[in-house]
């Protein structure tokens, strides 16, 4: 038996550590998907031009980069707070929710932009997408993290 802790705060404090790492991890999954997609849209020719020459494609790529950049800055700041001993569970909930949602949405969107190839194991997005369906559920579901942030805003526990 671990002598130094009694109550739910024991396991919950472990989960806070793991969720911190997950908030960073999700960025890696999203980056892997986008990196592969950018290469694909360079060489895929449709309607006589490369896919990446279309505004609609560039806007979708740019939007992914925007979300990855935001998530990276969020996690970096969270890491600074953690190293200063000032990280709290509400910050971790917001970062886990934001970054895993970002990665899952990007993996799904990359899957879509690969067309039929997107369902093939030759490309990484569908694997990341399926994996991230677990990541958004384990270590506190997205809803539970949203309600944790809600509790911090209102002072009322709704779960």
């Amino acid at each position: 038996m671990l002598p130094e802790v009694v109550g739910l705060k024991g396991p919950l404090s472990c989960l806070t550590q793991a969720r911190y790492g997950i908030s960073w991890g999700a960025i890696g999954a999203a980056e892997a998907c986008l990196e592969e997609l950018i290469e694909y849209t360079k060489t895929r020719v449709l309607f006589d031009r490369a896919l990446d020459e279309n505004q609609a494609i560039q806007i979708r790529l740019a939007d992914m980069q925007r979300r990855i950049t935001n998530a990276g800055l969020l996690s970096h700041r969270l890491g600074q707070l953690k190293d200063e001993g000032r990280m709290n569970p509400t910050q971790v909930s917001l970062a886990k929710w934001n970054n895993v949602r970002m990665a899952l949405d990007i993996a799904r969107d990359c899957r879509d932009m690969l067309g039929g190839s997107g369902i093939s194991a030759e490309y990484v997005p569908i694997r990341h997408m399926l994996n991230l369906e677990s990541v958004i559920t384990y270590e506190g579901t997205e809803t539970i993290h949203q309600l944790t942030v809600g509790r911090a805003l209102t002072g009322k526990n709704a779960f």
Partner: protein
Amino acid sequence: MSIDLFDINSLLSEEEQIVRNNVSRFVDENVKPIIQDCFESHSFPKQLIQPIAELGLLGSSIEGYGCAGMNSISYGLICQELERGDSGVRSFVSVQSSLVMYPIFTFGSEEQKEEWLPKLAKAEAIGCFGLTESQGGSDPANMKTHAKKDGDDWVINGSKMWITNGSIADLALIWANTEDGIRGFLVETSTSGFTANEIDNKFSLRGIGYI
């Protein structure tokens, strides 16, 4: 390497950049070439465990006990680079580091730390974290597993579900109700009465095992 528009890399210390580059290279050379097959064939890439330990990625934030004692940004970068390869590989490290080694380091006795942390850091022992039960993971306070003192021993009754690394673990950190409240127990999986049944009909994280 992916695009770093805001030059976040320059916020990293030299040591943090080295950690990141080492893990990134490991993922490119060792994870990416095999992980898609592991997913398809539903098999755990055991050959990755030893190199992960050698890079100091298990319990990387812990000072002493054979651990690397890196800072939190480095732990984040380790997770980011590993998950560039696969969420399952990152999950394996999250569980060993944050859910097994962290609580032993933070809440364990000196004897428990000395017995387990060096082995877990070297991957001579694999750990798992048993909190969730089938009646509802979001509400862990509704825990049915209980532990009762029997002389000098504890007897634990109950079952857990969705336990990452459960099927390959040597050590399970099991959370159980006691007369005093919820407590954590280090249970060697070779203990009689411990059984683990793998969940194999899943379509996510197919490269790693669960019970």
